[in-house]
């Protein structure tokens, strides 16, 4: 097990109170696993992803443990996390297009960053060049400023930089949204390549584009309103989903190309609950076609089949 998360709970502090964006998430990743993380916007997928590397100003760690290669990540401690960032956990941000300092030559920025992390730039240099070749970036990019690169080039440069120190866990947050379809495909294939070459051990790919996930992800985890709904191998999620929400999500996708809308699901009546004051129990129960009285209790995230985790009382009943 490379990543093991227990009861991770993270809230957002707002003036109106705490937003329960991530509640008691427990799951694990095996070595070499690429897990796709899907759900409507606001379901907590980005919260889950970013909380593993950097809690932003308004995010509050509430409880839970994160074990990476058997070592606990002190995610509540911004300074303490510094040691793990980049080396153990790394991030390809949503904003890859603007992630690099516009007034520094890329090579110089990489150099300064590497030195600041107490690594030897000259030692890393040959590997850096090999990886640039791998993603088909000319080595001259190191002498350029970010604005001199195209969108796709920036995306690849950020991928190379983020994985340069061979992190154990890589979080890729909506990496493909700014790119056109053919570039998206290339980028996703590169991610898999990085895993195959063991630049990264395991990966969480956050996206709203399931077609992307079906190409590269070994497993898919679906979230709803801050709770985990289901996690299973990719094929299983697409063909034999068990959680009512996942089923609705998959069935609402157009048959050609598996994509779902970022917006509210139209096929399902109702709206996701406000997480400022979330309903007790299963948060999907108001919209769920099969909900019953038991659903006022929070369902555990249980492994019903091998590697197939579901949080639904109805499913447990049928399975039992």
């Amino acid at each position: 097990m490379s990543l093991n998360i227990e009861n991770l709970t993270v809230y957002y502090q707002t003036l109106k109170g705490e937003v329960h964006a991530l509640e008691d998430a427990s799951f694990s990743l095996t070595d070499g696993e690429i897990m796709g993380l899907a759900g409507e916007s606001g379901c907590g997928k980005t919260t889950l992803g970013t909380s593993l590397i950097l809690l932003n100003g308004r995010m509050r760690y509430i409880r839970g443990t994160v074990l990476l290669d058997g070592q606990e990540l002190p995610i509540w401690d911004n300074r303490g996390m510094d040691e793990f960032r980049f080396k153990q956990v790394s991030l390809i941000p949503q904003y890859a297009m603007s992630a690099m300092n516009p007034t520094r030559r890329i090579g110089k920025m990489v150099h300064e960053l590497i030195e600041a992390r107490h690594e030897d730039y000259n030692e890393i240099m040959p590997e850096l060049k090999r990886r640039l070749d791998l993603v088909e970036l000319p080595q001259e990019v190191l002498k350029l400023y970010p604005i001199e690169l195209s969108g796709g080039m920036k995306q690849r440069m950020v991928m190379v930089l983020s994985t340069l120190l061979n992190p154990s866990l890589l979080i890729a947050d909506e990496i493909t949204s700014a790119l056109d379809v053919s570039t998206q495909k290339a980028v996703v294939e590169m991610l898999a390549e990085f895993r195959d070459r063991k630049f990264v051990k395991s990966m969480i790919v956050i996206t709203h584009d399931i077609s992307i996930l079906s190409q590269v992800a070994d497993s898919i985890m679906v979230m709803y309103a801050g709770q985990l709904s289901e996690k299973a191998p990719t094929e299983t999620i697409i063909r034999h989903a068990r959680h009512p929400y996942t089923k609705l999500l998959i069935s609402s996708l157009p048959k050609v190309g598996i994509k779902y809308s970022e917006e509210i699901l139209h096929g399902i009546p109702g709206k996701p609950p406000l997480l400022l004051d979330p309903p007790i129990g299963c948060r999907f129960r108001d919209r769920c076609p099969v909900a019953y009285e038991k659903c006022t209790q929070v369902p555990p995230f249980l492994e019903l089949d091998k590697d197939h985790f579901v949080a639904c009382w109805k499913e447990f009943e049928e399975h039992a």
Partner: protein
Amino acid sequence: MSEPKKKNEFLYFAMRNGKLKVGAVIVFIFVLIAIFGPKFARYPLNEFVAGGPNPPSADFYMGTTAYGQDVYAQFVYGLGTTFIVGIIGGGLATLLGMLVGFVGGYKGGWVDEVLNIITNIILVIPTFALLLIMVAYLKLRGVLIESIFIGLTSWPWAARAIRAQTFSLANREFVDLAKLSGMKTMKILFREIAPNMMSYLFMTFILQFGGAILTAATLDFIGLGPTQGVSLGLMMNWATNGSALLLGYWWWFVPPGIAITAVVGALYIMNVGLDEVFNPKLREM
């Protein structure tokens, strides 16, 4: 989020924002002094009521000038002038800036290019050098003329900022919708675009207001201000000419400076407060 909810949210943050409150209270106090102060003046403005200089006393609240004029009367009337210059000069500059910025940012193309060149030209010519040459040939100058000159020369940076904002709004969906429905350009600008940057325009006005006050004070002090009446800048000009500094008549030159600094400083601090209210990223959580 719906519209009324949003307004309430701004109001909520505005009421909680210390900078905004402190700034507004200071400005308000000085406005009250400018409006009601003259009612309490015991001596007419600029008349030689005392034989010579007097320090503040029960009779002369703020003392008298070297020539025996009542400083209190000069101060309260001068404060009024300051606000008039700020409103007219700052208001005119904001309006011109809006006009040029809206049209340039919305129309784009060669219209934008021409407006941009004009803006840049006026931007580099120092306002006060331009006023210097205009003022030199006007025999009689009033506060109104001064304010208009200031307004006519200080709009460029507002135009630039507003142009950039308009440019980003002009490509939004709701503007496209208005265009498709055949709305006239001017109507789109004032119905669709202006309301969406109200907060921004208001902040621009506040900065222009403060800037106009400072420019006027400098001009008056150099001797390019109104030839009649009184202003805080003129008071400082008279005080220096009357050797108030050498003779230590502090009550003559300290109050006008304090008033200008307090009003302009309070306006700037209000502006920071407003920025925090309208820009959630800057709010302290």
